[in-house]
């Protein structure tokens, strides 16, 4: 039985109005997320990953508009078909029902996400009431069992105030809270960025266990490739507002087909890498108000030729569910392969 994607994004374009002009934060973004699948949106600051992530539950700031494209969310129903929700078309009431129950988001900076004068139990209560979730004893039971799932002791945490918890604990409470109404889709924006290495590790482990136990779909927004690689099945590399490569995590790491993905991987020193293997990408990202003609990466790209500064490369499916936007992906893949076997 073919399963319907939980989320389908088609030709999404988002712009920000600024004094200097319209910032094209995202354009021609396409991807599908299958039920139970985890996808990472990877990129540097300004690449559009957070913009796209927040647009999925329509949480964009006031100066942003979705100027084109579709965001379709699907909830499976008993007969094997699915109820479709057009996220762009939702009104205020529809959004209230959609958020948290269908799709929930965890932000970075967990301290700011809580009301500092409410106990954790009250934060759960408020959320549940606002979005039509369980009440009374049922809520307490569900809340406490979620806290256990994220490896926290409910006896200590349930009646605590946010400031009584450490950063790592708060981040885990936030993840538990996001799952309160059993959403099918969990979006996490840099959930471990402010955390130390060992604390980050425990949050990663918790997320991995949760996915096994609850089987939700996940979108993980991060600039940290290695971190994302531990958690997700698929990765999408963002550059200047568009996905330049999307595919299976192992493929992207071992056989990147886009020069930018390849460059990013090479710019990341690992514990095992030799000094000579590490190299940065020359230049810096383009101005999103005046995007260059052709491929946005061409000025920094070592594989670029004349056509790259003229035509935006179309998305090409180079293998099953592996899509690349590069005129010369064959050469890049070949070079990556040669390097891997060296």
């Amino acid at each position, binding site marked *: 039985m073919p399963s319907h994607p939980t989320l389908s994004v088609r030709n999404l374009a988002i712009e920000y109005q600024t004094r200097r002009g319209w910032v094209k934060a995202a354009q021609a973004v396409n991807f599908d997320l299958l039920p139970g699948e985890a996808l990472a949106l990877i990129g540097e600051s300004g690449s559009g990953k957070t913009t796209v992530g927040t647009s999925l539950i329509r949480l964009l700031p006031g100066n942003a508009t979705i100027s084109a494209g579709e965001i379709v969310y699907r909830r499976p129903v008993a007969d094997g078909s699915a109820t479709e929700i057009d996220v762009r078309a939702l009104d205020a009431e529809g959004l209230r029902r959609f958020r948290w129950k269908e799709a929930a988001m965890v932000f970075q900076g967990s301290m700011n996400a809580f009301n500092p004068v409410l106990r954790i139990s009250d934060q759960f209560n408020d959320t549940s009431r606002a979005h039509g979730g369980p009440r009374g004893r049922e809520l307490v039971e569900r809340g406490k069992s979620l806290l256990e799932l994220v490896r926290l002791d409910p006896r200590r945490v349930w009646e605590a105030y946010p400031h009584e918890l450490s950063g790592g604990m708060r981040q885990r409470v936030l993840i538990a809270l996001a799952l309160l109404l059993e959403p099918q889709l969990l979006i996490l924006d840099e959930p471990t960025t402010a955390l130390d290495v060992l604390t980050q590790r425990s949050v990663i482990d918790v997320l991995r266990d949760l996915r096994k136990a609850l089987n939700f779909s996940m979108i993980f927004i991060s600039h940290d490739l290695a971190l994302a690689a531990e958690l997700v099945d698929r990765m999408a590399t963002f550059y200047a507002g568009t996905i330049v490569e999307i595919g299976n995590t192992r493929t992207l790491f071992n056989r990147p087909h886009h020069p930018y993905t390849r460059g990013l991987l090479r710019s990341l*020193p690992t*514990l095992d890498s030799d000094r000579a293997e590490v190299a940065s990408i020359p230049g*810096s990202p383009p101005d999103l108000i005046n995007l260059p003609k052709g491929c946005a990466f061409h000025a920094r790209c070592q594989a670029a030729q004349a056509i790259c500064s003229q035509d935006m490369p179309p998305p090409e499916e180079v293998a099953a569910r592996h899509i690349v936007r590069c005129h010369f992906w064959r050469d890049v893949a070949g070079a990556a392969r040669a390097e891997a076997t060296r």
Partner: protein
Amino acid sequence: MTTPLISLQNVTRTFEVGRQSIRAVDDVSLDIAPGEVVCLVGESGCGKTTTGKMVAGLLAVSQGRILYRGQDIKSLKGDAYRRFRLGVQLIHQDPYASLNSTRTVGQILRAPLERHGFARGPAARARAIELLELVNLTPAADLIEKYPHQLSGGQRQRVSIARALTVNPSFIIADEAVASVDMSIRIALLNTLSALKDKMGLGVLFITHDLALAKYFAWEGRIGVMYLGRMVELAPARALVEHPRHPYTRALLSAIPEPELEGVQRRERIRLRSDEIPSLLRMPGGCAFHPRCPAFEGERCSAQSPALVEVGGGVSVACHPVIEQLRQQAQAEARS
């Protein structure tokens, strides 16, 4: 033996918090030779930044002393003090905050040149351009007229480096100096710093939370790992990452996310006995790591704070079980 450029001798720094006092840095000793790179690595609250500030002379030590070219920096007066302050320069983490937004790059660089009598007027401008070229900011003649907000994060951090170099320092302290810069340009910035170090014979104290980055940058130098104010392991950079001795270093290394690459063996994960980092206000007795340590051995660890002991190969480690084990090994080898 040559005099170390910087020498920390049993340095402790305490802070008063309400009626209590915490030890942010506890009995740290470290010598840095001219031209040497030392990376300080650790999680937040481990004392790495406080150590850097003390070396820069921005914070006084509570106990112990810091020597600059053999002289206690506390005793320096007049010209000798000025030479120390010029000789040791700090590059801050956030170039958005550390550069004056109302001054052009040229003004930012000329101010210290003129204030300290290195160059004046057109010569100062020429030197500013030279410095920008040295940190690979080109075309320097254009950039000199720009304000910080007109530059990218990476360019701004290069201006910070150029500014630190205006006064011909012999020692640079870089506190998370590349943390705010995107990864695709981070390495280029580090390479610039590395090239300058080689060219000008600078000693560098590089403070970071990222062990992979520390290994890349230090390479021929050393890495010191700090935990709750104490130096727990100090070793040549590659040796520390490839053959970590201290249980904390090993746990840190095993917690770093790593992609599954073909042909690369994954590190074995080390589980700690507790995920909770103790508060500096309620420090555990004995070895500060003992409540979390997988190698915990009972009373000795919880009662006695281990000293940092040299175990050969330039490696020093502060851990009772590890030192004991190494001693037994050495004895067994001596017998056979």
